């Protein structure tokens, strides 16, 4: 390892260049991860914030709460929630929101203190709203009164949280048949219903899977490209060093020492690039405008960083193989006789 460290320390320019290239690739991967996590949050944070693990939906809903229509359970102890997209008018302007109706008297959502007709709004709806302001449903002209703020986004739009009491009042007002979107926390399944976990529910949000799989593919490509570039650089470095390494092999130095030095360099460069890119990610998180969906999920970023390190180590097997193949006699300058 000392050999690897001395080479890096005394040939700073060469290894700095390699570090910068690695950093750029890792940074691109982590920034995309931040963007993917931000979009994932933006798509389903309202569901993320709910304190429940299982949901029972209409079988024909494809797992989408806005397409699930269940009869109101006769047993009033069963907790239910309802979700519906609405167009509301706010200061004469139309806005798209999603209404989340949740049960009071539970810790499922943030609606415990709300009275009939009251809602909590996500600040992305408007920065100028105050408690007591009224939002009107454009279709039914039902009035929702602002009672406070609560973070919640669904399908890249702001959420209004309200109580089930308000929900049924809203349906009654707009002369619609009473229904709920899901039963929460129930374990019994019926043939006409669909049991889902919270994660499955989030993944069923329209566009969520398509969005995330695109990002996953981009990250996978970046990992592969990064590994190729690193492998190519270390391979070229190894080729440059073959005369000296061949002489060391002739002298009898264990190839393990040279191999360890190479692996040490790969691990140090990639790990430093991962750590630096995490730092840059936090800086980016602080300066990027809040309208841009970007989140630092450190566990997620570290997972990708770890994968990068592992793939780079695998990539280092090529120069290591080249080292093993070195014929000391050819390096010394003689024929392989």
């Amino acid at each position: 390892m000392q050999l690897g460290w001395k080479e890096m320390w005394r040939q700073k320019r060469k290894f700095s260049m390699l570090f910068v290239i690695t950093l750029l690739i890792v940074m691109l991967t982590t920034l995309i991860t931040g963007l993917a996590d931000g979009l994932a949050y933006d798509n389903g944070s309202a569901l993320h914030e709910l304190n429940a693990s299982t949901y029972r939906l209409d079988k024909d809903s494809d797992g989408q709460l806005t397409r699930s229509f269940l009869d109101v359970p006769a047993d009033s102890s069963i907790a239910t929630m309802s979700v519906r997209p609405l167009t509301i008018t706010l200061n004469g302007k139309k806005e798209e929101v999603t209404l989340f109706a949740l049960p009071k008297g539970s810790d499922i959502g943030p609606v415990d203190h709300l009275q009939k007709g009251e809602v909590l709004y996500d600040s992305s709806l408007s920065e100028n709203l105050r408690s007591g302001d009224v939002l009107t449903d454009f279709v039914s002209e039902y009035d929702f009164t602002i009672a406070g703020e609560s973070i919640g986004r669904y399908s890249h739009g702001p959420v209004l949280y309200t109580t089930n009491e308000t929900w049924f009042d809203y349906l009654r007002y707009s002369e619609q048949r009473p229904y709920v979107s899901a039963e929460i926390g129930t374990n019994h399944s019926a043939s006409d219903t669909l049991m889902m976990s919270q994660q499955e529910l989030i993944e069923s949000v329209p566009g969520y899977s398509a969005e995330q799989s695109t990002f996953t593919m981009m990250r996978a490509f970046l990992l592969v490209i990064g590994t190729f570039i690193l492998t190519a650089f270390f391979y070229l470095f190894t080729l440059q060093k073959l005369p000296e390494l061949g002489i060391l092999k002739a002298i009898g130095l264990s190839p393990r020492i040279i191999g360890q030095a190479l692996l040490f360099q790969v691990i140090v460069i990639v790990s430093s690039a991962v750590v630096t890119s995490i730092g840059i990610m936090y800086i980016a998180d602080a300066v990027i405008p809040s309208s841009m969906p970007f989140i630092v999920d450190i566990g997620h970023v570290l997972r990708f960083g770890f994968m990068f390190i592992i793939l780079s180590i695998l990539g280092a097997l090529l120069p290591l193989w080249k080292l093993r193949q070195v014929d000391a006699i050819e390096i010394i300058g003689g024929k392989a006789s």
Partner: protein
Amino acid sequence: MRLQHVSHQFDGQLVLNNINLNVSPGECIAIVGPSGSGKSTLLYILGLLRKPEHGTFLLNERDVSDLDEEQRRLLRLHEVGFVFQQAHLIPYLTVLEQLELIQENRNVDAKELLQELGLEHRLHHLPMTLSGGEKQRVAVARALVNSPRLILADEPTASLDYENGRRVMELLSQQAHRKGRSVVVITHDERMLDVCDRVLRVIDGTLTEIRN
């Protein structure tokens, strides 16, 4: 060190033909011969870089003709010191570190060794700051750091001017005469032969003693 009836082929051609060679401790011998005569092949066999196809190679009375790669590597590290035409020093290691990298014999003081070779003022210098003669002396020090019983030098003066070449040759012969090591030098430079005890010529794969 003894070679007994050693023969070796390359590309179907006999490059060493029934070679017998005996080098005693404290003896410095030179091997000369035209290009392609087989002298490099002889050196590779003596240096345990190649196995002889026929015959026996005895090093310290032990038959080492048919050892596996790892056994030969360990013997090279501990028993054989190499000096090549080019010093081939590691560019990012200082003079002292070049020796420490391969040093297995802790009884040898690398600094003292470099001092003996007139390199005490260069201990912490990188190869790029050394002259050609100094680099080759570092290569000699590297060959000596594990106190090998056999020293092999392949054209060690080829890249040096006469003065520096002479100094390197004298250092090698001193290793034989003062330290009791066996030294084998392959050289084209006839001006250097006088420091060796014996001179042998390889022609068409056979070895002939031309000066004793």
